[in-house]
């Protein structure tokens, strides 16, 4: 992993493959289970995969606290390495960062590809758009996140378990309250002026696919795709189908 200084932050970034540029923003959990997905992406794109500050075990600066800060960091990153015509791919928490970037500035973007993004509050005040996994027992968390895959934490090594603990800590750091969303983000979705594709696992129990359809209704130039047999992380559970979906250019 390369280290690059962006806006005063030492950012760890993986750069793999050749082809048109893609910025991939990772989700909140199971970094090591995403390795096969990133390798597949690298067969088709030159893929830039930063590790979000904090998730890498390094404490972010005290004034760096919300997903808006992450979005400015990655907009600065695109400026700094001067990427254009970028396919911006974000999954879950990373999808939320992607949305925050795109409502701010799409100049360097070709398209926005989002796998079950968090971040946009659509339901009423007594409805969870995003399940409160923090309050669920382990077996219910597993069935919310995965359709068919059994993730056995007992088989994870120490580094991987520490990674999960860090991921949980920094998901809370950025997004404990309001719960996994920015209350004003829904208001600004119209600003996204590049083609958007929403990809959803049909059996997602964390962010339901019917929420995804409602989100699509709030966007222009959007395509909504579901992947059967997958939960919240189709990129883990249905890798080939997810890659095939991404290979069809967004916006036709």
């Amino acid at each position, binding site marked *: 992993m390369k280290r690059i200084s962006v806006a005063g932050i030492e950012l760890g970034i993986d750069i793999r493959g050749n082809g048109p540029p893609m910025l991939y923003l990772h989700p909140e959990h199971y970094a090591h289970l995403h390795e096969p997905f990133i390798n597949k992406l690298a067969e088709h794109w030159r893929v830039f995969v930063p590790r979000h500050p904090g998730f890498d075990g390094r404490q972010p600066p005290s004034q760096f606290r919300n997903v808006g800060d992450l979005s400015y960091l990655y907009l600065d990153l695109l400026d700094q390495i001067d990427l254009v015509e970028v396919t911006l791919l974000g999954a879950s928490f990373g999808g939320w960062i992607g949305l925050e970037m795109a409502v701010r500035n799409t100049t360097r973007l070709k398209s926005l590809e989002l796998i079950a993004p968090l971040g946009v509050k659509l339901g009423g005040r007594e409805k969870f758009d995003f399940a409160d996994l923090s*309050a669920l027992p382990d077996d219910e968390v597993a069935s919310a996140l995965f359709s068919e895959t059994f993730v056995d934490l007992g088989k994870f090594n120490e580094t991987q378990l520490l990674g999960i*603990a860090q991921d949980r800590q920094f998901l*809370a750091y950025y997004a404990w309250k309001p719960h996994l969303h920015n209350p004003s983000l829904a208001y600004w979705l119209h600003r996204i002026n590049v083609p958007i594709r929403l990809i959803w696992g049909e059996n997602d129990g964390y962010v339901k696919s019917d929420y995804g359809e409602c989100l699509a209704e709030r966007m222009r130039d959007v395509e909504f795709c579901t992947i059967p047999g997958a939960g919240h992380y189709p990129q883990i559970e249905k890798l080939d189908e997810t890659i095939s979906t991404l290979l069809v250019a967004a916006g036709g």
Partner: protein
Amino acid sequence: MKAWHFSEMAYHPAWEELGDSLRNLVPSSVYDPKVGADLYHRYLDEWALCDELGINIMVNEHHTTATCATSVCTIPMAILARETRKVRLLCLGMPIANRMDAVRVAEEYAMLDVISRGRLEMGFVKGAPFEVWPANSNPATLMERFWEAHDLILKALTTHDGPFNWEGEHFHYRQVNVWPRPYQSPHPPVWMTVMSPGSAAEAGSRGYSIASLNTGYLRTQEIFEGYRKAAADAGREAPKERFGYLAIVGVGDTNEEGKRRADQILDYSRTTPRAASQFWFPPGYTSNEITAQMLYNRGPNMIPLRNGGEFKMQFGTVDEFIDAGVAFAGNPDTVFEQIKEFHQHVGGLGQLLMMGQGGHISHHDTVSNLQLFSKEVLPRLADL
């Protein structure tokens, strides 16, 4: 040594029905307000009795649980500030990182101190892990919020030419100007709960009183040592009055009676672990190294014995809890000797926070427990 009587004002009638989940996921439909009212009055009567017995008073708070029906610590304390005349009143405590209005905390404490004519002692506590959900308090930033609240509350209590403004990371006020000012000057004494040498050191460097909660014969000594070292490094005294320890206390005319009373109170300890496992490790609340271990290997809460063994907190016998230094129980002589031994072992204990009521012990037994302790044990503790 001074003594304090503590009760969680438990709603024990629901424990059996609720099974293994006494916290967070507990429908209030199992709470009968008529029974609850009787219990509140009973517990308040027991605290009020302490004023005659020379035992100081300690209250705490927990949320969304049948183990502790004190959801706002300053409410029983407000009643007792008026009903009592002599003893000191300790709120231990106020979970200041979970209270989104820190100035309100300063106001509540200031009022209590004035009404009680300067008998208040202020506890600032981190709060148990399962408390972050009822408060919706971000566990990943909990300790930075704790220290900011600490700074703001003390400034609010000690500023008498207000208003001042506060634009911190977690708290924002244009005009802070707390009325009344506290009775004690510069402010009521500060206490903190500690569970490790590290947290004791934080309090030691500031010269606060500490309460080590049920940390037992084997762990308390190093926690106190952590305090003493940090106090010395900061050039502060560490008199034994700064050192508090919370234990279950059961006194009877005979050893059997004292142990029976402690056994009933110990249902407090046995019910403490009864919470669904996902609520024990909120993200960022403990170190990631500990969370990582617990992700796949959450064992039961264990308490160490002096012989190197250990027992499950949920199922411990009264003799095991006594051996562990979590309970002092027996006739007055036995209880005094146990406390004296603990005091010597930890290098000096100045404040015994005694759980004289808890679990299923009856009002009659609680009163007898407190009276016997006051008459037969407390006078001897004064010399320690």
